[in-house]
């Protein structure tokens, strides 16, 4: 596979994690402008683990997920009782604080006679685990997509579990969910932690993909993009945010389509799309239609199958 294609696909895979993270919160009815913070925290944590402490990649990624989840819980304690715009802006304020704190974060150690570690606004380079362990770009891409597929499978199971139903109920009508006996705060905390973990893993993968991270990558632009991907791709399925990332980074970012005018065309298209499809391309209705079409082509019910043959 072409190097350029591998690099674009890897990038799409990694950004999908933060889009999924925002999507998961949207399911519970909350808009977050701050998922990029957990992406950044995960990136720094995973990179510190492998590049400075000599941990293996798997452990580093786990640390990234854990750091993302625990910081999401920590910030969730005071913010999760807020709603709507108040919650959205509180997450924005938190994420920007994290970004500025990362700008002030200096922690370097000598590795092989060279200083490695976060160095404020100059960023954190030399995250060379992938290179040092002779993992090829293609292999690393496979790793990203394996983890992404795992995350999607997890979300797919989650949406069909009691927990997922509870999330959608809270997202649909919190008062109704409460009267149905759903513990709102606990469920929102779980959703926040899961979303934080997703973003954290994505951050860890990102750091090892680019080998260099700096605080300004994790700014509000990334956060709002993550939110927008779900709205563009569709809120009906976890594949929606992925479609959003694919359209933005894959179709427009890498093909130099409309270069120079890209956002003029794309921004206008998104605005027009949202007039007709306020819940994105793959909205609930579309997902339902695809589902029933699929069942007609590929009937799983044995009685239906035999019926079709006779």
């Amino acid at each position, binding site marked *: 596979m072409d190097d350029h294609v591998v690099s674009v696909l890897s990038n799409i895979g990694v950004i999908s994690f933060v889009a999924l993270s925002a999507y998961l919160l949207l399911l519970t009815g909350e808009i977050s402008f701050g998922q990029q913070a957990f992406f950044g925290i995960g990136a720094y944590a995973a990179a510190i683990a492998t590049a400075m402490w000599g941990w293996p990649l798997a452990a580093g990624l786990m640390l990234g997920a854990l750091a993302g989840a625990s910081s999401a819980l920590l910030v969730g304690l005071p*913010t999760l009782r*807020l709603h709507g715009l108040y919650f959205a802006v*509180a997450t924005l*304020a938190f994420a920007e604080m994290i970004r500025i704190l990362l700008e002030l974060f200096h922690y370097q150690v000598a590795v092989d006679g060279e200083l490695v570690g976060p160095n404020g606004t100059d960023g954190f380079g030399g995250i060379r685990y992938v290179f040092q362990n002779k993992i090829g770009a293609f292999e690393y891409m496979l790793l990203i997509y394996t983890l992404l597929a795992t995350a999607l499978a997890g979300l797919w199971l989650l949406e069909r579990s009691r927990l997922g139903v509870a999330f959608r109920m809270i997202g649909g009508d919190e008062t109704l969910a409460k009267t149905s006996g759903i513990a709102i705060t606990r469920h929102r905390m779980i959703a926040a932690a899961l979303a934080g973990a997703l973003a954290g893993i994505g951050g860890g993968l990102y750091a090892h993909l680019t080998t260099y991270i700096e605080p300004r990558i994790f700014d509000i632009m990334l956060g709002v993009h993550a939110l927008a991907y779900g709205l563009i791709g569709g809120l009906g399925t976890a594949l929606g945010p992925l479609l959003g990332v694919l359209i933005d980074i894959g179709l427009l970012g890498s093909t130099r389509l409309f270069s120079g005018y890209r956002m003029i065309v794309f921004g206008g298209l998104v*605005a027009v799309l*949202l007039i007709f499809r306020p819940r994105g391309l793959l909205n609930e209705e579309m997902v339902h239609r695809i589902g029933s079409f699929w069942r007609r082509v590929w009937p799983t019910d044995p009685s239906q199958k035999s019926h079709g043959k006779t």
Partner: protein
Amino acid sequence: MIDFVQTTVDGVMVGCSYGLLAIGFTLIFGVIRRLNLSYGPSIMVGAYLGTFLYVQFGAGPLLVAVAVVAGAAIAGIYVERLCFAPMKGGAGVASMVSSFAIWMQLEQAMILLLPRHTYAFPALATGAPWEFGPFTLRPDQLLMLILAIATGIIVNTIIYRTRFGTGLRLVTSNQIAAHLVGVNVRNVMLGAFALASAVGGFAGFLVLAIDQQVTPMFGMWATIKGLIAMMIGGLGSVPGAIAGGLVLGVIEAHAQGLVGPQARDLTAYLLLFLCLVLRPGGLFGKAPEADGAFSSRST
């Protein structure tokens, strides 16, 4: 003590422009109960238009000011028509994301117009700072203060003394009831966008004239500062917006004076975060009621 007073005065000067930015933001939020992320970028359109006239034709500050205000108002109308007017009730998140998409669009269009990273912007007034004993006062800052206050008075007059202003207050208070007493709600919304963006545009002009330069980051800067000042002061309240802007300006000035620029931004966000967590209605506002219309629940 002398430093403290001087820093506070400097903060008040900057805070005035934050207050104006927040007034525009809060007027829009009041009538549509949604977040217009393109608020700052609309102002940027005006700012770039003014800069273009200045750079290309050497336009003076007055003409530039008119261009900034007009450009911002037109961009605001464009945003309203595309991102807010066609949306059915309840599609709050879609509107917000749509306004973000248009933010990207406007920003790139302006970068095509003026591709360099930094451009000069005409000064509001020139002249040596005045000295009052140990204190100094820049003439352009004083002029900015006066103009900001004058703008505040004009906006206040529009809101409380005109028929459009009455309609705007009625829509802000209760949209359906406003329909029922015969307010043309769609026109009021359009007018609110135009007025708010024009006020924001003038605030942007003042800020840029003090800095005497403009960069493509200006749109984002205006959205963020307006948003922080609005939330600190309490959503949908004009006096709150001014107070929020002043508080933000003064606190930023002190944080910068004591520690440095990163501490300034950190303090601003910390203040915002604490306000939201401890007093979600804003420092000066009442309990929030803006929730339902914004939440993704109602998409």
